[in-house]
């Protein structure tokens, strides 16, 4: 339990098994959702279940994954909480997870589902970090620019980090475009140090008297 809670806080922690199982279930879920024609809604609901419910109420998650409750009790619990609020395909999927004791893999599944849906829709997930929160207008301008640049739909997530001072850092996949003041200062310090050292060395004689 504690490990699962930790996982939710550090998204980078890498677990081969979670990723592997997640991909298999994700494929099945997307397939089922496509058949009923509302894949986007399913993805959205699943993400919200993970971030809004499970992350906030670990007790609920432990109840779902606890072996003390029988599977019919869990089903009933799920029906009570989710029926009418989430897509029926997703509800069935959650029940399958429960009956197979795979609820612990739900984060891996969610990550894989998001990735697969993005790929299928030709969407590019972009994380923008700025020193101050972006206004909606700025976001649309940025998304439009990126769309024309990459020729893909843009799913923009924005974060704030005051230590950047100014400018922005755009992260697409593993590539980072850093135009923040913080990054530039670091770069400048490095370059100036290097070049000044070189200059000083070549002119050493004139500098020492």
């Amino acid at each position, binding site marked *: 339990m504690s490990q699962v809670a930790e996982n939710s806080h*550090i998204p*980078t*922690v*890498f677990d*081969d098994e979670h*990723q592997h199982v997640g991909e298999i279930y994700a494929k099945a879920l997307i397939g089922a959702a496509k058949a009923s024609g509302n894949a986007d809604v399913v993805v959205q609901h699943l993400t919200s279940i993970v971030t809004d419910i499970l992350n906030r109420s670990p007790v609920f998650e432990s109840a779902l994954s606890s072996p003390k409750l029988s599977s019919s009790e869990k089903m009933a619990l799920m029906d009570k909480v989710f029926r009418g609020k989430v897509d029926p395909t997703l509800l069935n999927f959650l029940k399958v997870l429960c009956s197979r004791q795979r609820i612990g893999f739900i984060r891996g599944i969610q990550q894989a589902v998001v990735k697969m849906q993005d790929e299928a829709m030709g969407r590019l997930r972009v994380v923008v970090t700025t020193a101050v929160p972006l206004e909606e207008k700025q976001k649309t301008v940025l998304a439009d620019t990126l769309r024309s640049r990459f020729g893909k739909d843009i799913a923009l997530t924005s974060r704030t980090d005051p230590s950047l001072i100014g400018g922005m850092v755009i*992260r697409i*996949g*593993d*590539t*980072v*475009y*850093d*135009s923040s003041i913080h*990054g*530039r200062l670091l*770069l*400048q310090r490095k*370059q*100036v140090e290097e*070049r*000044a050292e070189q*200059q*000083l*060395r070549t*002119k050493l004689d*004139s*500098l*020492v*008297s």
Partner: protein
Amino acid sequence: MKFNSDEIASVIQREIEQFESQIDVREVGTVLEVGDGIARVYGLSNVMSGEMVEFPSGVTGLAFNLEEKSVGIIILGDYLTISEGDEVRALGKLLSVPVGDEVIGRVLDPLGNPLDGKGPVQAKTQRPVEIIATGVAERQPVHEPLQTGIKAIDAMTPIGRGQRELIIGDRKTGKTAVALDAIINQKHTGVKCFYVAVGQKDSSVALVIDALEKHGAMDYTTIIVAGASAPAPLQYVAPYAGTAMAEHFMFNGQHALIVYDDLSKQAVAYRQLSLLMRRPPGREAFPGDVFYCHSRLLERSAKLSKELGGGSLTSLPIIETLEGEVSAYIPTNVISITDGQIYLQPDLFFAGIRPAMNVGISVSRVGGAAQIKAMKKVAGGLRLDLAAFRELEAFAQLGTELDAATQSRLDRGYRMVELLKQAQYQPMSVADQIISIYAGTRGHLDDVPISKVRDFESELLRFVRNRNPDLLKKIVDVGDLTSEIEEAIKSAITSFKATFRP
């Protein structure tokens, strides 16, 4: 000495003004786990094998293992400053080291950082550490000798420029001593020397540096150190880094000699990395590509063709065996890669035969092509004679009655063994070697008591140097044992013998 601070400030200011800001585009990943000189990184999806990466602390690494979901990085430096979650950036370039005349006389780590306190290396050029060796068309057969100054080696297992000659033996059998004598003997020959210390005690390295300095060899030698306390990745790259520095001279038409001391420790460092990276272990737990690790390194020693300037890189890899076990994995590998081996044995060493070379199993596959003609003629059958002598000696120990012919062969053998002994740090010129070996193989020592053979030799050489210096010059200039030179040597020996009182 006084620094002009205004001037310095203005230099820095100019650099700041010239700084052009542009968007910094980088490929990044996140450290998942780190330890024992390696890191596992999530992300870096476009990184290439062998590409350099940088950690936030400024430490660099190499992408070593590309897996489906993570990248294994070997860390070239202090891995204790790296922590989980750190951002790793790909640098998009290969590891390279400074090369050129600036590295000569320096003691460096495998990345080219100074370890001798003489300030940074101000090299103008860099060379990638790993390159693919020159191909068939760019080479020519080895034909010039590289004199080690050690009689036993130059006479029986000659080394040519561009050859790879393995020095193999147990601990404390004088392996490093042979290599050091070879380096010291390169004085005035223009051959640049490189000594790569891998996994050695820092105290031994200090001794080596001291010995080279004392004999004036640091003027043309570079020492690359990845000591026993250096992380395994640095020990693994050290030989490649040293080779890159030495190759620079080869490709510029010069000659270089590189000593890898020793490759068994490099193999152990590579095994450590591979096991930590979870590559499947094979024989003796070494990874499957440990052969390639050494073959691609030693293949870079070459004699280049005339069109490429005819430069050469000679290598003397050293392998330490355990209890004389040459059939272990790494020794057999390196024996099969190199063009011959010098086998040093502890029992010979403790019997006072130094260098403790076992003549029977030491070979040079380049052979006579790496000797001047005079040496070839003088020492032609020496190796086989000595091997036959060893057999005969074992037989004679049974206490059987020996006929006169056998006894005389035994006596000659004892004297040759005595003659081939040589003190450390006293390499001999090729002319000196020819005269003393001539005296031995042509029977001029047969009537000298065995205990006086070495005195006879040193005094003979002093005699020739004082009375007949032209003879030494002539041997080197002509390079052949013409009948005229042979007569001159013979008469020098005879006239010396008349004065020698054993």
